[in-house]
């Protein structure tokens, strides 16, 4: 009986696939966002409002991840935006290999932005790199301002946070300053946007930020 040193990341296989995806994205100058939140935070609605603002200006594609159904991809297609649905069949997150399998069906050279909407879950998706440029998370005011403390990993890995359902603030006990302070506790550079998918409030600042990120990725590729 003897001990053998291994020292390998458990997610090495996923990370290799993510690196491969990232190379494709960078090569084609496509800015890729991994959109994450708990179920019901409003990811798909915010995505719809975002796509409406980009219509005619940018070429966008969407990958929808859900445990089951293609309802979300159908919502996106109604806006004239190409969408692929991945059903994980029980898995609580998307991984880089799943994304890689779908890339064959996507003409990356025809896109400026690819949004991957992850499975609704505040825990598991945080652990899996998909090869995206930025992780963006959505927290809605109806979920409670204690979420950054309860789910620190998700708030740590996010590049930007959309604080959604701001229109409901008068009806819920949600301390915006506390949520923002605690969301930044392990993430100094977190960009925070206060938005409402229902009223459209705050969406312009978010879309401007996205466009600036897209411009940088495009410039680096050419």
């Amino acid at each position, binding site marked *: 009986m003897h001990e053998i040193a291994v020292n390998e990341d458990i997610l090495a296989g996923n990370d290799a696939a993510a690196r491969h995806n990232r190379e494709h994205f960078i090569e084609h100058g496509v800015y890729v966002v991994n959109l994450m939140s708990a179920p019901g935070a409003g990811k798909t609605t915010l995505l719809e409002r975002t796509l409406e603002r980009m219509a005619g200006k940018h070429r966008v594609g969407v990958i929808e991840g859900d445990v089951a159904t293609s309802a979300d991809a159908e919502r996106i297609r109604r806006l004239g935006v190409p969408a692929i649905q991945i059903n994980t069949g029980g898995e609580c997150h998307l991984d880089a290999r799943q994304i890689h399998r779908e890339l064959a069906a996507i003409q990356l050279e025809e896109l400026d932005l690819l949004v991957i909407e992850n499975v609704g879950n505040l825990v598991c998706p*945080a652990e899996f790199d998909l090869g995206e440029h930025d992780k963006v998370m959505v927290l809605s005011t109806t979920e409670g301002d204690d979420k950054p403390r309860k789910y620190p990993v998700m708030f740590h890995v996010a590049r930007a946070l959309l604080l959604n359902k701001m229109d409901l603030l008068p009806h819920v006990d949600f301390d915006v300053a506390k949520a923002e302070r605690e969301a930044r506790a392990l993430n100094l550079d977190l960009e925070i946007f206060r938005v409402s998918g229902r009223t459209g409030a705050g969406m312009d600042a978010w879309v401007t930020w996205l466009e600036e990120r897209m411009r940088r990725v495009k410039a680096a590729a050419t």
Partner: protein
Amino acid sequence: MHEVALARELLSLIREAGRAHAAARVTRARVEIGQLSCASPDALRFAFEALRVGTLADGCELVVERTPLRASCTSCGEALVADAKDPACPRCGRAPLEVLAGRELRLVSIEVEDG
């Protein structure tokens, strides 16, 4: 419950390392999980015990060590070990903290019986 996916990856790393050393059996695996990881050691162990059956790692004991969340305070510069659920500097009480380590999910070593 992404621990099933993690356990699957872990098992394949263990089997690969075991085979590379022509092991008859892998009896123990040491794993590090950082405090700033969302993997639960109990759930990982549970999934691993279900998946290891009939493989080179059948009966393999999983030894999990939680590695600390190391950070430095962006206000006072203090190097510290933080609690992910209540991240604040023990010296000045402030945050944000800059995370230096704590996201590990690593297979450190295996113990094998020679074939």
